């Protein structure tokens, strides 16, 4: 993959607003953002209700994903363009999710909702109508999804990239600072994981930094590109942003996103945890 295949600009989106084979989808951490105005023609996916099983902690299954996209009017051969707030955190998560279920042509709007707003581009309240489709998903591509046991096994072996803020990594905070801190799990990070906050990959307007800048950031942080990589954060959305950078923009092979992330790892009995600003020992 490359930047050209996985990102589109706001100008490109404006030029394709009336293209019926381009489906704009807004996915926000704040699930009400869409309702306050969205890009013309965009549909909404709610990450809490549409993309998560409502009983178990897991994603919706293949049949549920097929039913969801069919009902929303997304076809297998559509170009799906995702965007959202918070520098595309949840849009990147949805991008990874679409890849997990094998959608071929999916892209992120560079800068997401924030750049669109900062550019004072048009947002509308009209709800689009899309005819239902018969969407067929693939089995989950677990080459891009890491689970807890392989994360534990990766300690001291693979690149573990913890993309939370430095204070969360060190154990001084348990959640990103726009959320209340009361949590059940222990604080800290997976031993030997390096801390490269997701935000280092983004410009202030939410767009991704240049390939050259990105290579320098991860190289200086000690990412060994001859090794496989697992990205993690708290619940797997910020690490989707970094997974996108490493896999889709920089073209690294064998990069997985650990969606269980710290809310799972920090609750496991008996696994090692490192505290403080250093990666710690295996």
């Amino acid at each position, binding site marked *: 993959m490359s930047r050209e295949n996985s990102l589109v600009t706001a100008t490109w989106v404006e030029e394709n607003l009336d293209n019926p084979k381009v489906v704009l989808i807004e996915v926000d951490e*704040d699930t009400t*953002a869409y309702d*306050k105005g969205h890009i013309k023609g965009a549909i909404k996916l709610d990450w809490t209700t549409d993309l998560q099983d409502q009983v178990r902690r897991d994603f919706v299954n293949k049949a549920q994903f097929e039913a969801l996209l069919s009902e929303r009017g997304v076809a297998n051969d559509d170009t799906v363009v995702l965007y959202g*707030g*918070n*520098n595309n955190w949840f849009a990147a998560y949805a991008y990874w999710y679409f890849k997990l279920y094998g959608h071929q042509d999916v892209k992120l709007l560079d800068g997401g909702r*924030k750049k669109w*707003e*900062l*550019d*004072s581009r048009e947002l509308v309240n009209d709800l689009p109508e899309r005819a239902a489709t018969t969407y067929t998903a693939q089995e989950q591509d677990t080459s891009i999804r890491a689970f807890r046991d392989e994360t534990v096994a990766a300690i001291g072996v693979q690149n573990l990239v913890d993309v939370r*803020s*430095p*204070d969360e990594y060190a154990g*001084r*905070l348990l*959640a*990103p*600072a*726009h*959320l*209340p*801190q*009361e949590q059940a799990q222990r604080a800290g990070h997976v031993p030997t994981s390096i801390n490269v*906050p997701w*935000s*280092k990959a983004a410009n*202030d*307007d939410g767009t991704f930094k240049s390939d050259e800048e990105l290579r320098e950031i991860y190289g200086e942080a000690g990412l060994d590109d001859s090794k496989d990589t697992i990205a993690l954060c708290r619940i797997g959305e910020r690490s989707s942003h970094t997974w996108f950078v490493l896999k889709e923009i920089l073209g690294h092979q064998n990069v997985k996103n650990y969606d269980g992330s710290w809310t799972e790892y920090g609750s496991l009995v008996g696994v090692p945890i490192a505290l403080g600003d250093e990666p710690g020992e295996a």
Partner: protein
Amino acid sequence: MCGATEGGLSLDGVNTKIEAIVQGQVTKSGEPVSTGYVRLLDRTGEFTAEVPVSATGHFRFFAGDGEWTLRTLVPGADPVDRKVEAATGSIAEVDIAV
């Protein structure tokens, strides 16, 4: 809620005794800003969190004890940085004019 900004964001359901809250309102030419973002930077200047302002220009963070910097991103205005000291069990109010 005692200590919350009048007309600001609700703190219902939040245990304020264990939180180091930083909150406030962003204004431009005396009027609340309805489109914009506020970032929270840690003591080294590293990005920690970002929120969109509410329709009334309000924002809130749950930080840790210590010094933080707030940075605004508002269409048509230069970013403004404001330092703030946060402490568990208290609410630091910061109003920012851009």
